[in-house]
């Protein structure tokens, strides 16, 4: 297998703040990788560098053959292949649910109207929200909005899907439905998934690999089973015991 | 120097700037005081009184200032109120701008939030004390940036008094380029620059307050 995402000696600063330290990381096509760590550890920042929402200051980052750090790279092109699901959904407030899903395929992929709508309806069915198509985002619950956001990303048929704490802003009873959609994608597609989350059960059940970050550094990068059975670092052990109790 | 910028022309124009600034300052002071009072009345909902004030404020706000200037200068004498161009301008601008200030102050008072009032009343202050010591100071602070914007409009609007032959900046520039058409472009550039300097300084002041208050 070949790596679809390749970080080499990457550093990122916010002014004086050193947000990412010497990141070296390779992720293979089709892998499902979960990023965990305490807040402020840089996991969301790392995720956001992958589709160029954050720029890196040092090292190289190659995604699907494109050098993200180079100004020559067409980020628009890259982003059609790398979808992202946000903590706060970021659905288009001024568009209906159906339009949210169909907009980018129409504008960017120039998908034919009938085909576009057919795919959108299929995706709505997949996230179990077919009846919500004509509504606006504000009329949906958080969990429903997040499932629509996932469908919106899937509509672009991306190679990589990034999830930035997709369940953190949800009420507890909404979390399950979103996770089950994500589990479905992980199991039934060859998409590469990177998930920043605090849901340890989900990580254990779905991830091929777990990456543990702290203070902008990758502390551990292990097989899921190995990581949860024998976390090597003191930081990881402490972190795991804290999330379990919470 | 001769031409558009002869010494006498420059002196003449600068006197106009003095009139513009003078009318502006006096009108700002009067409209600020009157507008604050009106704003508090609008905010406090005094039975009957507030409704009357609301009607008057809405009426004046929705009329062109130019109409109010003309009315003051040409129509009020019919009621026995004779004002010269300077006083008529100050009067018309103060009345008009006071209604604008009233809305700004009312908005500022509303933005302070009910929690502050409830807090103050629970500590045993009466309504007047609550307004004077707690609500008004916060409201005024928040109103500073929009008030400054309003006063920028006021400075610009003094140029309308040209219509009743008040010898302010705009009027005097017209007198000067009346001497020679060649003076037109230099005069427009000069007065545009003078107005810009005065108003842009005010707008920088508003931005400075805006940043400090956030």
């Amino acid at each position, binding site marked *: 297998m070949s790596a679809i995402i390749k970080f080499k000696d990457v550093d990122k600063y916010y002014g004086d703040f050193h947000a990412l330290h010497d990141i070296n990381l390779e992720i293979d096509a089709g892998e499902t990788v979960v990023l965990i760590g305490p807040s402020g550890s840089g996991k969301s920042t790392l995720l956001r560098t992958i*589709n160029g*929402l954050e720029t890196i200051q040092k090292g190289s980052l190659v995604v699907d053959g494109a050098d993200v750090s180079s100004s020559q790279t067409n980020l*628009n092109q890259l*982003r*059609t292949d*790398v*979808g*992202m699901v*946000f903590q*706060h*959904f*970021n*659905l*288009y*407030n*001024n*568009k209906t649910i159906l339009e949210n899903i169909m*907009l*980018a395929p129409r*504008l*960017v*992929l120039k998908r034919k109207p009938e085909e576009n709508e057919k795919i959108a309806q299929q995706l709505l069915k997949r996230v179990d929200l077919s009846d919500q198509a004509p509504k*606006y985002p*504000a*009329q949906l619950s958080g969990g429903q909005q997040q499932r629509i*956001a996932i469908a*919106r*990303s899937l509509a*672009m048929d991306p190679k990589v899907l990034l999830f930035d704490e997709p369940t953190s802003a949800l009420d507890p009873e909404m979390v399950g439905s979103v996770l089950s959609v994500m589990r479905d994608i992980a199991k039934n597609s060859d998409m590469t998934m990177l998930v920043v989350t605090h849901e340890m059960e989900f990580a254990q059940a779905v991830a091929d690999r777990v990456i543990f970050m702290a203070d902008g550094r990758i502390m551990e990068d292990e097989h899921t089973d190995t990581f949860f059975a024998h976390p090597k670092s003191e930081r990881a052990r402490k972190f795991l015991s804290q999330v379990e109790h919470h | 120097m001769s031409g558009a910028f002869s010494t006498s022309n420059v002196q003449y124009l600068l006197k106009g700037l003095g009139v513009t600034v003078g009318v502006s300052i006096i009108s700002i002071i009067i409209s600020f005081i009157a507008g604050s009072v009106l704003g508090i009345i609008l905010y406090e909902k005094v039975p009957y009184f507030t409704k009357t004030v609301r009607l008057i404020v809405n*009426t004046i706000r*929705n*009329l*062109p200032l*130019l*109409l109010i200037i*003309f*009315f003051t200068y*040409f*129509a009020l004498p*019919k*009621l026995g109120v004779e004002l010269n161009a300077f006083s008529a301008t100050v009067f018309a601008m103060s009345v008009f701008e006071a209604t604008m200030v009233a809305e700004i102050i009312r908005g500022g008072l509303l933005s302070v939030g009910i929690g502050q009032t409830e807090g103050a009343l629970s500590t045993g202050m009466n309504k007047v004390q609550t307004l004077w010591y707690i609500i008004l100071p916060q409201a005024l602070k928040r109103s500073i940036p929009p008030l400054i914007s309003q006063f*920028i409009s006021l400075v*610009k*609007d003094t*140029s*309308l008094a*040209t*219509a009743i032959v008040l010898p302010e900046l*705009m009027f005097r520039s*017209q007198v000067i*380029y009346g001497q020679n*058409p060649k003076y*037109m*472009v230099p005069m*427009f550039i000069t007065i*545009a620059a003078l*107005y*810009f300097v005065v*108003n842009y300084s005010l*707008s920088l002041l508003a931005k400075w307050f805006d940043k400090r208050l956030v």
Partner: protein
Amino acid sequence: MIDIFTQNWQTILNGFWVTILSSVIGLVGSLLLGTIFALLELAPSRSLRIIGTAFVEFFRNIPLLVITMFFYVVVSSSFKIGGFWSGTIGLILYTSAFIAECLRGGIASVDAGQMEGARSNGLTYTQAMTHIVLPQGFRLAIPSLGNQFINLVKNSSILSFVAGFDLMYQANVISGANLDPFNTYIIVGILYLLITASVSWVVKRLENRIGKEVIR
């Protein structure tokens, strides 16, 4: 007071019509120009931002009368544009600076996640702006835009300085003839209130309609 209207109704209605015409042209023109300059002010490129800001700051800080007289006295000596167009062009330039500020505020208060979501979804900056951010910015700006439109109607009285034959101009003509400025100005004032009140009413309705469309 009634006989002023019955004796001059044609003149008054002509002026009323010119005021409305100039306001409508001013509204359309300043909305277009204001949008362009708001987008320039927010553009990713620094030089575009400077152009936008310079335009807005210039026209916001000099009197409408100066702009209008410039067109009437200087520009119309080379291009025959006359009083109506001098006044209306002045109105467009002046008002568009304020509209740009309203829109900039509206766009700035659209959640940054909307742009990020759209960009991550594969849309270009321009697509994200025109389809997602700008429409929402417009809606958020409606109350302040409404105020600018009312100001625009009132400011159209600037046409009276340049023989634009608007309502204000006709009021001066009539009161010069009948020597009854008191009642003449009151009639004209009522007509102005009629226009500004209608604009307020339309803006309120728009606000309510959009409030129901559940945004944010």
